[in-house]
């Protein structure tokens, strides 16, 4: 590993730190290299005495309070470094913020509405299936005393038929409810994972 490699690796290892911190550290070590070379050491000696770049970086990171430095950096960035990059960053942030934020908000509302619609469909279908099923059973049960009361076999068969039809409709709605339930879970989980990726 030569000096250039060492500095490159160190730069990479420091990525968790704010830019100003990385710049400071790299500057310091560049200067240190220069001073060592000036005092008759060679690159190889310097690097072996420094240790691996990841070890050097770990010590810098451990000693820095990343959060505290972050706040300071935004301030310093704004005050001292009105570079094109900073302007670009801030303009980009300003432009994208009013679009992205409402977009996200709308997406959340859509998601919320979909959940409510799915839920109400579920409840209504469930109610329809339950009520038709119950009335079907009731008519089936009622057909026997009804037939005895009216003394007519045809009436009993009519009642039995109606009861069976109602049972069928109830079963159908039960299946629809089940399908809606499964479908809504699938859709909402997909939408949710979509949000997750967006964040």
């Amino acid at each position: 590993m030569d000096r250039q490699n060492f500095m490159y690796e160190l730069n990479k290892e420091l990525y968790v730190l704010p830019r100003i911190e990385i710049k400071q550290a790299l500057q310091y070590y560049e200067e240190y290299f220069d001073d060592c070379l000036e005092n008759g050491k060679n690159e190889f000696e310097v690097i072996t005495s420094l240790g691996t770049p990841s070890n050097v970086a770990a010590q810098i990171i451990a000693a820095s309070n990343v959060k505290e430095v972050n706040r300071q950096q935004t301030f310093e960035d704004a005050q001292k470094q009105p570079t094109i990059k900073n302007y670009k960053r801030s303009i980009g942030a300003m432009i994208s913020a009013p679009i992205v934020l409402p977009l996200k908000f709308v997406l959340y509302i859509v998601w919320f509405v979909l959940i409510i619609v799915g839920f109400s469909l579920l409840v209504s279908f469930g109610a329809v299936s339950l009520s038709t099923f119950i009335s079907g059973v009731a008519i089936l049960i009622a057909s026997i005393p009804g037939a005895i009361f009216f003394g007519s076999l045809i009436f009993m068969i009519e009642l039995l038929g109606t009861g069976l039809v109602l049972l069928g409709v109830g079963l159908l709605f039960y299946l629809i409810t089940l399908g809606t339930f499964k479908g809504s879970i699938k859709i909402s989980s997909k939408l949710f994972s979509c949000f997750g990726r967006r964040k």
Partner: protein
Amino acid sequence: MDIQLKKGLLDAIVLAAVKKGDVYGYKLLQDVLTVIEVSESTLYPILRRLETQGCLQTYQQQHDGRLRKYYSITKSGELKLKEYRQQCLELANIINFIFQ
């Protein structure tokens, strides 16, 4: 020397070394090395921390066509050093006691 003890002393050593006169990184390391064994990778984080804490301040000076960063001690750095000296006096008493 014990690592914990060394860590505690290093801040004091650095402050004391800078108080003797403004100094740049490489020179400071040489000064510190005369009293305690320390690797270069431990010195920079200490310097940076002392700087962000306001105990040290820096300025740059031309040297051989490149910039050199000099460290100098601030008022609060001197106060801090005073505290360390007080603590070191206590430590000296302890050391005396141990050797009696």
